[in-house]
């Protein structure tokens, strides 16, 4: 049923920093890229294009992708930043695949790094980066408070509770407690009571329902044609991609009266995201559906986004995504292991690189090279969902160890 993939990831590199082992975003990017080039068995002069997400929070110079190739002394035909927040990173795989498909590139480097915790007061600058500076910032919103607008509506419309959100945090921490670079690893596994005893950050979200800023990470992927990938050792094929974005500022989204994408429901709403359309595209391109997915790495920066994303990806009807967690499907013995590095909730968000961490985790799991826990049966097909902004953008990539 699935169509032949056009592209594959043939090189992967990752790099990590912490308060005790400080590295800046440029250092992390160089380390990850060097490892990815070696993994792919190519030289830097064979890279034709470089795509990144937006500038790292810890190094906000504009033209960051061009700063990187300059620093590397690595001339290429094209550099660009896909600035759909975290979703842009997943979309770099799609753009790389398209360039390769039309013969405009042989090898493309998809890259991101960040180290917010090590260099930035993220609480102080957080909402200012993602809220409307004209109509929202003057009211002092924080990122948790903007996401909480959706949580409150989700509770109101579908009857979910804080207990449900606690279960998402517990499920993710079960993975994160065993990943060597997870920001919340030191806390070990937790239970519902622990989540519900943690203080509110922005109601109804408590501290354990919010992702944390954790250390620094870099991730680099070398994409080439599926044909060339036949010579590679551990290729990961790109079976399908999709992306969509509906807004930058939540106030714009709230004042939309309709949306061209039927998967996003009646407008206005805060309980459907652009991920629904991104998933539709990726499933259509690959010929796959939810039942073909063995593993997922998704963007759960706040606990309610777990069930909402599950619904948008087609694993449950709207309002029922929590069942996927309740039934244990996302765990190591489940049929849909999800966020196997702990996800953004437990692994943390080193910054804009958090979605590259999801891609790295998917590649590692598909190759049988997990740094943390891995399910007994190695996954063959993994779905990576990147989201970003204030419920703004969604992007999906379907990756597989086989064609």
């Amino acid at each position, binding site marked *: 049923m699935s169509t032949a993939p056009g592209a594959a990831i043939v090189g992967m590199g990752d790099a990590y920093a912490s308060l005790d082992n400080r590295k800046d975003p440029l250092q992390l990017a160089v380390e990850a890229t060097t490892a990815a080039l070696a993994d792919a068995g190519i030289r830097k002069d064979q890279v034709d294009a470089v795509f990144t997400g937006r500038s790292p929070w810890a190094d906000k110079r504009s033209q960051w992708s061009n700063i990187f190739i300059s620093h590397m002394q690595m001339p290429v035909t094209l550099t660009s930043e896909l600035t759909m927040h975290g979703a842009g990173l997943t979309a770099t795989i799609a753009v790389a695949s398209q360039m390769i498909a039309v013969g405009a590139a042989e090898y493309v480097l998809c890259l991101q790094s960040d180290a917010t915790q090590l260099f930035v007061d993220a*609480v*102080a*600058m*957080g*909402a*200012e980066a993602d809220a*409307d*500076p*004209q*109509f*929202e*910032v*003057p*009211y*002092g*919103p*924080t990122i*948790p*408070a*903007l996401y*909480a*607008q*959706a*949580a*409150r*509506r989700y509770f*109101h419309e579908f009857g979910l509770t804080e207990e449900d959100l606690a279960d998402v945090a517990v499920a993710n921490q079960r993975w994160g407690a065993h990943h060597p670079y997870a920001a919340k690893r030191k806390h070990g596994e937790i239970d519902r009571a622990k989540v519900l005893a943690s*203080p*509110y*950050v*922005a*109601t*109804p*979200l408590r501290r354990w329902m919010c992702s944390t800023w954790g250390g620094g990470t870099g991730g680099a992927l070398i994409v080439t044609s599926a044909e060339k990938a036949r010579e590679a050792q551990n290729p990961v094929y790109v079976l399908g991609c999709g992306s969509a974005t509906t807004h930058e500022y*939540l*106030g*714009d989204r*709230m*004042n*939309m*009266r309709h949306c061209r994408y039927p998967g996003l429901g009646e407008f*206005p709403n*805060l309980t459907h995201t652009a991920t629904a359309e991104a998933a539709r595209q990726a499933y259509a391109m690959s010929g796959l559906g939810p039942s073909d997915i063995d593993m997922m790495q998704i963007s759960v920066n706040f606990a309610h986004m777990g069930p909402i994303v599950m619904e948008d990806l087609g694993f449950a009807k709207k309002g029922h995504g929590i069942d996927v967690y309740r039934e244990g499907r996302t765990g190591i013995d489940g049929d849909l292991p999800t966020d196997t590095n702990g996800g953004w909730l437990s692994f943390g968000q080193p910054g804009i690189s958090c979605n590259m961490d999801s891609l790295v985790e998917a590649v590692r799991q598909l190759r049988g090279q997990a740094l943390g826990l891995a399910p007994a049966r190695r996954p063959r097909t993994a779905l990576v969902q990147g989201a970003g902004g204030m419920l703004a953008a969604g992007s999906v990539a379907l990756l597989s160890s086989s064609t």
Partner: protein
Amino acid sequence: MTDAKVLNDWPQPYRLMDAQPYWEALADEQLTFQRCADCEQAVWPAHSVCTHCGSAGLSWEQSSGRGTIYSYSTILRGPTPVWSAIAPYTVGFVQMDEGYFLFTQIEGEPDGIEIGKEVSARFVQRGEQKLPVFALVTSGEEG
């Protein structure tokens, strides 16, 4: 002026030209919004062209200043010292009676704030700027 000074001040709106009439009216404690002459829908935030039908026939109207709470969150941890000083405070979307959604601060005890409750606007001075904030309508004010 030091960075610390900036962090300690109320953040001022990043004014764009479409919204100039909105900010000017607020200085006189008037809450305004745009309406499209062609499709008759309320338009918000401020635009040059109607987001619903594409018409350039937008004009400013005064809002009743009344609406209902669509969603909200009470912030326990303020992002900077000025906000920490007033925490806990609540931000949310108000569905205005005219049909648009305004992001704002909702004053009052957090426990009393609920989706669907009626609110009305009042004005507060924040630095150089007068801003509309909302408070629950008590039964005595109704009618």
